[in-house]
């Protein structure tokens, strides 16, 4: 069935606390859970909600994201009537180049908004990992006759002192006000950076906001709209687990949470698979010296050593005598004989030399950057 929602993913968030992990990639391209990137979960939310037309606003180091998305084929987003539109920065247009905020990005891509034919648009940030049916959001949006519907969660694990956006929502589900980066959040509802709005209305709002000199959608436009009280702004509470990937610790904890089978089965199910770029690796090979417990292991790995409480991405090689505990090891990493690593995040194509020992406290995982040898 034809969807009445077009999706738009904004990947321009720079979250400084992710440090080395985003030096070479956007947050949306962060490798997650052994074979995915963060954006895969958003794209899967879209396609499993029937959204067939998706734009991705690129910013900063978007090479790895482009490389990952390709033609959108893996997500069945390579059609003629709809599909995926990559929206790289325009350097020559008004508000092009480096966006100061999401509002700039939306305005620079007005053509995408105008050209789409769907009645509604779902705009989202890209640093959250969660599962939701956007068609349910749209249903509530229409039933409640809202002008804008904001997605929020009551999950306390995504609250941060001094960071984030928190909503005051009354009993009628109307958003009363918003706190922006409060030192201590007062409202119990965390805004998830995703909203649904009538497409024509968004175009109109953008036009006026830009004329008023605004750059930021939430901090400037949305806050002003909440104060003016001319629009009906509703909340939609997202059920289920949610992870905010806003620091190295949060990244580490989100990945590790999926060693819990309950968490895993909630996100992954046969009916709504999470699609991702394929590498056509062979199944993982365990030799007779392998010892693996409580770990997620992707295809292409060759395991001759010990792996505990860890996540191994595709084609990681663990030599005999090597011990990996409480680690996230990204693709093509090589852990040589008798090395011991604990509490580390190894980026892609890292090498751990024979006999190297590196042990970090789990509260402060150590990141080893892409291509490095330790």
């Amino acid at each position, binding site marked *: 069935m034809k969807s009445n929602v077009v999706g738009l993913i904004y990947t321009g968030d720079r979250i400084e606390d992710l440090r080395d992990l985003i030096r070479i990639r956007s947050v949306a391209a962060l490798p997650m859970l052994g074979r995915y990137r963060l954006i895969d979960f958003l794209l899967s939310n879209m396609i499993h909600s029937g959204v067939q037309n998706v734009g991705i606003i690129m910013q900063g180091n978007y090479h790895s994201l482009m490389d990952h998305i390709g033609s959108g084929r893996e997500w069945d987003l390579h059609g003629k009537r709809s599909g995926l539109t990559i929206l790289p920065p325009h350097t020559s247009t008004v508000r092009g180049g480096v966006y100061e905020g999401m509002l700039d990005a939306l305005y620079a891509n007005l053509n995408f908004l105008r050209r789409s034919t769907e009645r509604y648009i779902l705009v989202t940030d890209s640093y959250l990992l969660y599962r939701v049916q956007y068609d349910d959001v749209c249903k509530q949006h229409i039933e409640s006759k809202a002008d804008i519907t904001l997605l929020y969660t009551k999950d306390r694990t995504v609250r941060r002192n001094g960071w984030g956006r928190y909503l005051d929502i009354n009993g009628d589900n109307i958003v009363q006000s918003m706190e922006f980066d409060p030192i201590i959040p007062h409202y119990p509802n965390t805004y998830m950076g995703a909203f649904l709005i009538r497409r024509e209305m968004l175009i109109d709002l953008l036009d006026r906001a830009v004329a008023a000199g605004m750059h930021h959608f939430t901090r400037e436009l949305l806050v002003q709209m909440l104060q003016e009280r001319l629009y009906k702004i509703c909340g939609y509470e997202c059920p289920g687990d949610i992870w905010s990937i806003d620091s190295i610790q949060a990244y580490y904890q989100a990945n590790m949470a999926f060693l819990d089978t309950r968490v895993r089965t909630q996100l992954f199910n046969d009916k709504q698979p*999470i*699609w991702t770029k394929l590498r056509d690796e062979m199944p993982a090979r365990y030799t007779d*010296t392998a010892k*693996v417990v409580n770990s997620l*292991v992707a295809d292409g790995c060759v395991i001759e050593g010990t792996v505990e409480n860890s996540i191994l991405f595709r084609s990681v090689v663990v030599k005999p005598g090597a011990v990996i505990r409480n680690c996230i090891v990204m693709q093509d990493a090589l852990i040589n004989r008798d090395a011991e690593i604990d509490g580390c995040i190894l980026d892609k194509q890292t090498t751990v030399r024979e006999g190297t020992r590196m042990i970090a406290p789990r509260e402060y995982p150590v990141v080893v950057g892409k291509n490095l040898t330790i």
Partner: protein
Amino acid sequence: MYRKKSCVAMLLAGGQGSRLGILTRHVAKPAVPFGGKYRIIDFPLSNCVNSGIDVVGVLTQYRPLELNAYIGSGAPWDLDVNSGGVYVLPPYHTGKTGEWYRGTANSIYQNLEFAKQYNPDYVLVLSGDHIYKMDYAEMIAHHVKHNAAATIAVRQVPWEEASRFGIMNTDENNNIIEFEEKPANPKSNNASMGVYVFSFDKLCSYLEADEQDPESSNDFGKNIIPAMLNAGECMTAYTFNDYWKDVGTIESLWDANMDLLKDPVPVDLRDREWRIYARNVGSPPHYVAEGGSVIDSLITEGCQIMGSVTHSVLSTNAIVEEGAVVIDSVLMPGARIGKGAVIRRAIVAENAVIGEGCVVGEEEGDIAVVGSNTSLKAGEFVAAGQQVGE
């Protein structure tokens, strides 16, 4: 108008593969799962694209549904291209006539129109029941160099097994002088691999002549190759001594899976230069639980291992529950092994569910098989060599 292709591949996938017993009761042999995440047909298809051949006709007839769905648009093998691609070719009606494929040669004959669209110089004929990595481009180069009418890939098999194969007797220049199908007293140990290159015009004329012969069984081995030899055509043997395994029987299918666990592995699927492509179902990485154990095995996406797995090949989404033991076995996609069950020297087919405490297979003897979508009640016993299921 189609662009001319130097070579078009025709993949014979119409046979039932009845020697695979219960495993091919509901699917055609080329669609049988292999090696954790592959199906048998992934090997010839991947060999084709890796050899630069991008037109492949797949001749199907027996239970084609799953095979058709698996091939789909051909995208997993990069065969969804404008100028070629993979085409599933079932038998069809032409108005006046229409019939099932009567033999391997007849199936190609009925699809000569398909090949003619590409005006090829050569046709590569493949079968859908072998596991091997082969550069067909080298074989075609050999064919061109010898200016042959047909080139047949051969490999040296142990003398004691030679009488199970079609044997090519060659002269000192590697020209084939005689072909014997399963000879009692073989004169050579050069066995045909079922991989042929024909010059297209020669193939057309021999297939057309063969159709005129009501006595013919329309088979490449029995009719076409002997007819070409009798007529004195230039027939060369192309020797291929890398890994090649016929997986036409339960025993050989199990063997070929176990070959992937050898060290060094006789057929390396990690080879980046010669990828074997497969359709992906989008499962998460596999999980080995606290208390689970895996040694000497191949495990792929979607598997969950709470029990113990030794020297086995587990396919996509296979589950081994707490206390279950899997040894020397092959679990096909979606197979589920209940708590405390013991699986030994067995093949558990797609989506089979083994109840708690079942015992399937034995330490010695033939391979036990549980068919696809079969459920075993708790405590059932399947003896060595036994096949259970619909």
